[in-house]
């Protein structure tokens, strides 16, 4: 007969952690959670701060901004302004999970369920992570990046490397591909080569036509822009086209770009990822409790933490700091489960495809095939909107008053849903800035275009970013704003033309 494990007090031991891990793994199997093998590491508070400083990665190249991050965290932590996260989990294979040694036994179980099973299965299952990251290679790549950058520092000096890194970091959010690039490119190349061949053959046949003098009109045709199509991945453009960069500098640009790309899915799935992990730690803890593997005091402690995690202060609260992704994600997943099992007439109208389906399968489908934007657009139910009392507020600079445009009623659900979905669309969070043209015949000025939406201006920082871009490009950089009506205004130029 299986021996029951029941911790007596809140002290944890590795043995006990292993036992619980096994129990949780059984529950996870029941719910078909597919995970990478986990590597669970117990770390101290200081190590946790180290991990924080390098955006959670176990290995990262050295940079002063990480030092700044570390100092900030250290200060806040030492003064008691903030607590540390209970865990950090890394999208790698094996999936690295850091547990803080200060956690109590109940916390460690919660964290195991949350990170080693929740996040882990999300990393393995979600399409964006499949598409953009390779969990098997990331640690190796970070090792390579760290080595490469420290070699560069030895060879070219810390300052030279730092300058490039600073410039790249400023463009990091605009250094990701939103669509697959390489297969398209190779196809294009193939086609280009094919046309080349065709043309060659044609020229052999029509040799006689060569003798006819060319018309002069042709040269008057406007010069083609470069790049022919606007490029939204600024770092990619720099890496491939900046004329003055040395090989090692290009490699550094590439490293920053690759890492930015690695984090791209995480930025797009904050709500889903946290919601999914929270949903699973909640479900798993309740299963453990039902199996009598944890007792009431543990459950009370767990619920206390869980409630803290999913607390959403109302907008008027002094602690209000935006929508809590844990709350939103957890509410949506929980409600999906409810819709599958106990649908109301309202749900039947809103979600005809998923009422009375197997909730495990439905949730799995939702986890695998969406990102925050589409997930909210698809699954935010009227009940969640009511529970969270969501409302839409329109803020138009031209008007003196803010206006409530929708509240949680029949007329508003759809509107709130689509507006909230847009709010999580990264292209709405990051301004749409693209490389428009390079003055190839002139002074090689690089022109960026900011395509404005909703008349929103760029922040003052743009000036500084342009300076960084200038360092990489080596020739003047111009930023133009294209308004929705199509008019083009020069916004920034560096170096400034002295009149």
């Amino acid at each position, binding site marked *: 007969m299986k021996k029951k494990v029941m911790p007596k007090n809140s002290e944890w031991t590795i043995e006990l952690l292993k036992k619980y891990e096994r129990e949780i793994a059984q529950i996870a199997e029941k719910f078909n959670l597919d995970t990478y093998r986990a590597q669970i590491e117990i770390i101290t508070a200081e190590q946790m701060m180290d991990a924080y400083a390098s955006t959670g990665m176990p290995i990262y190249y050295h940079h002063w901004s990480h030092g700044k991050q570390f100092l900030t965290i250290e200060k806040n932590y030492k003064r008691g302004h903030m607590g540390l996260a209970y865990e950090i989990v890394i999208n790698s294979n094996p999936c690295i999970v850091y547990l803080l040694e200060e956690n109590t036994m109940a916390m460690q179980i919660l964290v195991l369920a949350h990170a*080693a099973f929740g996040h882990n299965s999300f990393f393995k299952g979600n399409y964006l992570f499949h598409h953009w990251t390779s969990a098997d290679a990331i640690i190796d790549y970070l090792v390579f990046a760290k080595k490469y950058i420290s070699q560069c520092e030895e060879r070219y000096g810390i300052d030279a490397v730092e300058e490039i890194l600073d410039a790249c970091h400023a463009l990091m959010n605009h250094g990701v591909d939103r669509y697959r690039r390489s297969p398209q490119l190779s196809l294009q190349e193939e086609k280009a080569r094919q046309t080349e061949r065709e043309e060659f053959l044609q020229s052999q046949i029509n040799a006689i036509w060569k003798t006819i003098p060319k018309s002069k009109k042709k040269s008057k045709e406007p010069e083609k822009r470069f790049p022919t199509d606007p490029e939204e991945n600024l770092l990619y453009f720099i890496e491939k086209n900046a004329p003055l960069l040395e090989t090692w500098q290009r490699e550094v640009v590439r490293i920053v770009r690759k890492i930015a790309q690695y984090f791209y899915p995480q930025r797009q799935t904050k709500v889903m990822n946290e919601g999914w992990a929270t949903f699973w730690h909640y479900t798993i803890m309740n299963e453990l409790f039902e199996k009598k593997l944890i007792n009431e005091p543990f459950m009370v402690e767990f619920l206390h933490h869980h409630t803290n995690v999913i607390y959403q202060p109302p907008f008027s609260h002094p602690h209000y700091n935006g929508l809590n992704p844990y709350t939103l994600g957890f509410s949506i997943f929980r409600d999906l489960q409810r819709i599958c099992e106990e649908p109301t007439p309202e749900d039947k109208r809103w979600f005809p495809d998923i009422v009375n389906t197997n909730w495990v399968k439905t949730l799995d489908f939702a986890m695998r095939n969406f990102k925050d934007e589409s997930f909210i657009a698809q699954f935010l139910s009227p009940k969640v909107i009511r529970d969270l009392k*969501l409302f839409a507020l*329109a803020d138009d600079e031209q008007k003196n008053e803010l206006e409530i445009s929708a509240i949680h009623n029949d007329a508003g659900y759809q509107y709130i849903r689509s507006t909230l979905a847009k709010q999580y669309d990264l292209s709405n969070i990051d301004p749409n800035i693209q490389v428009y043209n390079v003055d190839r015949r002139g002074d090689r000025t690089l022109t960026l275009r900011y395509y404005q939406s909703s008349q929103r201006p760029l922040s003052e920082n743009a000036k500084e970013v342009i300076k960084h871009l200038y360092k990489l490009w080596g020739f003047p950089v111009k930023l133009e704003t294209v308004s929705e009506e199509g008019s083009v205004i020069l916004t920034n130029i560096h170096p400034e033309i002295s009149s």
Partner: protein
Amino acid sequence: MPRFIDRRSQSRHKSAVNRQRFLRRFKAQVKKAVSNAISNRSISDIENGEKITIPTKDIREPHFHYGYGGKQEIILPGNQHFIVGDKIKRSPIQVDKNKSNASNEGEAEDAFDFQISTEEFLDLFFDDLELPNLTKTQILKTNAQKLIRAGFTIQGTPANINIIRSFRGAISRRLAHRGALKRRLNDLEMKLKKLTPNEENTFSISTLKKEIKQVKNRLKNIPFIDPFDLRYNNRVRQPRPTAQAVMFCIMDVSGSMDETKKDIAKRFFILLYLFLKRNYETIELVFIRHHTTAKEVPEQEFFYSKETGGTVVSSALELMRDIITHRYPASDWNIYGAQASDGDNWNNDSPRCRDILMHDIMPHVQYFAYVEIMARQPQSLWEVYQIVKESSKNFAMQPINHVRDIYPVLKNLFSRQHPAIPLATENLQ
């Protein structure tokens, strides 16, 4: 099956490098904060770390993002009583707040502050003093030497014979010599065996036998050990940097030295001590105070006990000389002297001070610094010390008139050494 790893004891201080990078990058700002700290707080706790504050705007990392303005629609939670169409007045504060975060979010948001450690503080502190040059030219001057092993030689004293090496040589020599002879012996013996003893062969047999005898003799005569085999341990002398230092603090405690003057003297000693501490593993301190007679005292007594009376400086210098001869031989110790006085001295004593310094002290010490605190006018001591200064390069003197002068004076004292290097090059030309 997952792996559990207890990392708690491993890889600490991962961010140390990043932290250094941060300090390096903002050195100018940090330095400024450090020099402010020096002027603001008492030197007695200068060895503690320091809180550094840097304006946030200097360390910002810019990105492209939206500024305030245009049309926006946001979803907020926790609706209490709004219905569609409600209009809310835009409060002027809200606009202001969004437009410029810096202006009214409070100073706290505007400054980035953090703590630096003692070492970092001292590094920055002395970095300003521009001492590294001195460290190379003066401080690491070495007197002591040590013997270190340096392989083997073929000459030496019998005491240094290396037995193993010598025998190894002997064996190989014997093997080498014997080999050829043994082969020859074998050949000869084989030949001898082949010859049947008859009339014809008598002659050749006897020659063979003779030859065999010769070879055997030669074999026997190979010496077991030969002078040629001998190897001796070789040792060479190598200069050894002395890692220990002694610092003499000499202070006038006569009636004319009041509390303020003593305080200045103390601060000067502390700074010098801190500086030396960065360069040596161990520093011993000797406190000598004097009025008409000199006495070696513990630190507490040195600074805080009250004395009165006249002043005979030479008594202290004599004591220092004696202590050096008895306890701190110059070959083993880096000796530093620091003297603080208000310049008063019994006039007839001053020439004597000069003599002791020039003949008995200066040749042994690395450096001797004299500060004259709030002297009313140049005194006799100052004049004779000028003579000492001209004759020895490692002697320095400075007047101090105010607490705030100490730091620049220390800087001066040490930067004085710099011209010594250009001088040398001039000579070469």
